[in-house]
């Protein structure tokens, strides 16, 4: 991956000036490149990685395996797109193997997620079956470890 993207993926708040110094290119080049990535939809947004387990909010997450009937012409795309539009769907992937779609959903409570599966997901025409797994604890999310282990400290001065 391009080094600029890598740096932004690590810290989207890094200033164009610092990015320019780090990459030893001009600030204008940094700004132009970022604008280009945004225009081409390569950078789709900037957001904080939040460990929601640490917040006092009610949130339940689940992973749902969905089997569907592919359609002539569109394959899995039409149903997958339709499911992906629900606000409670965080991520959705087409998979190889014993099921077709893997759907990551979240909701305020177990009931809310269950209701989404029963009433909205399972009832879509073409959905053959669903298997729902609720998430118990997050260890790592989007490449970020949620709990940094007590780090071993280096000596403050060494040769």
């Amino acid at each position: 991956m391009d080094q600029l993207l890598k740096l932004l993926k690590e810290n989207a708040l890094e200033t164009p000036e610092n990015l320019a110094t780090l990459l030893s290119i001009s600030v204008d080049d940094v700004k132009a490149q970022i604008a280009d990535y945004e225009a081409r939809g390569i950078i789709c947004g900037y957001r904080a990685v939040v460990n929601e387990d640490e917040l006092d909010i009610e949130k339940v997450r689940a992973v749902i395996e969905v089997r569907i009937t592919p359609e002539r012409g569109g394959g899995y795309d039409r149903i997958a797109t339709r499911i992906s539009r629900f606000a409670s769907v965080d991520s959705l992937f087409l998979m190889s193997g014993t099921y077709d779609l893997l759907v990551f959903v979240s909701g305020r409570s177990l009931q809310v997620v269950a209701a989404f599966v029963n009433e909205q997901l399972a009832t879509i025409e073409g959905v053959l079956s669903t298997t729902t797994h609720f998430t118990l604890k997050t260890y790592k999310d989007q490449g970020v470890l949620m709990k940094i282990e007590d780090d071993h400290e280096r000596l403050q001065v060494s040769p």
Partner: protein
Amino acid sequence: MNDSKSPRNFVAGHVRGMPRSGIRDFFDMVSTREGVISLSIGEPDFVTPWHIREAAIYALEHGATSYTSNLGLLRLRKAIAAYVARSHALTYAPESEVLITVGVSEALDLAIRAVVEPGDEVIYHEPCYVSYSPVIGLAFGKGVAVPTRQADDFRLTRADIEPVITAKSKVLLLNFPTNPTGAVLTREDLTGIAALACEHDLLVITDEVYTELTYDAERLSIAALPGMRERTIYLNGLSKAWAMTGFRMGYACAPPALIEAMMKIHQYSMLCAPILSQEASVAALKNGDADVAEMREAYRQRRHYIHAALNDMGLPCHLPGGAFYAFPYIGGTGMNSRDFSMALLEQENVACVPGTAFGSSGEGYLRCSYATGLEEIKRAMERMARFVRSL
């Protein structure tokens, strides 16, 4: 007065006479303080990549708790020979020309002890790694320091060395990229030095522990130049580029007669390097290239940042070509290295090692390690700029 009860009297005179390391003095100062941002650490801030640590755990689970052969695991020596071959187009026979040691530190000690006789002169460039002079002294050799200069980006040339050569000169000890200056040599520099070594029949010991952390220059080992393989002991290790300092893994590559001589000392003093570290190193050399590249890229970016920040605050600094140290000139402030770094520590809680810890030619300079997270470096540079403005 001869106080026979003092344990100090048992200590050998040449050990008693060894000066305390400037690094240790500075460490004692820093460790009394809280909230210090330290740019005085000579090891990576990265933790060893997980797959390498996992290989050590796997080996431990499978009962790898024994000695290995004195030379080290043949599998590892093969991996090292393959690594050196792909890095430098230099071939060494894993069976007889590779010795695995406890860090480059041990390899350096073995190399010096295996070749230096009392009074032999060992030429090295300064500022340099803290252990060179003491290790030469412990072998009763005579260290001959050749100063390098900021005006040349701390490079070393044939012309610098030539004047100090005498009939007693036996060894030329090189370390590029250099701790603490980050200096790297050009092909011309190396060719000139190699010719000089041949003309004066010098053995070259080349400490290339930072070779993977070379940012722009061609990665060339003096051992790979024509006629040099036979008169060079090549030292390298996994501490820096693989972030494995605590594993204590180094190695020497040299013609069989030299390896055999080093092995004699190693087998009686160390027996062998720790097996778990050797197992981890096999994994590192086989599957670690991407990790090394990633860390190198991070250091490269920080290097640009720290170089710009130091120059901006009025401390002239050359762009280091390798390793992870910037070596700015602070003499323009009117302070010497020690006073500057003490005052910086007192006022702003930023620790940088005074250049004099690396030899007297380091006077007027400061070693700023960028083996520290970017955010820490940013804060350190802000504080340091404020300190310089206050002078």
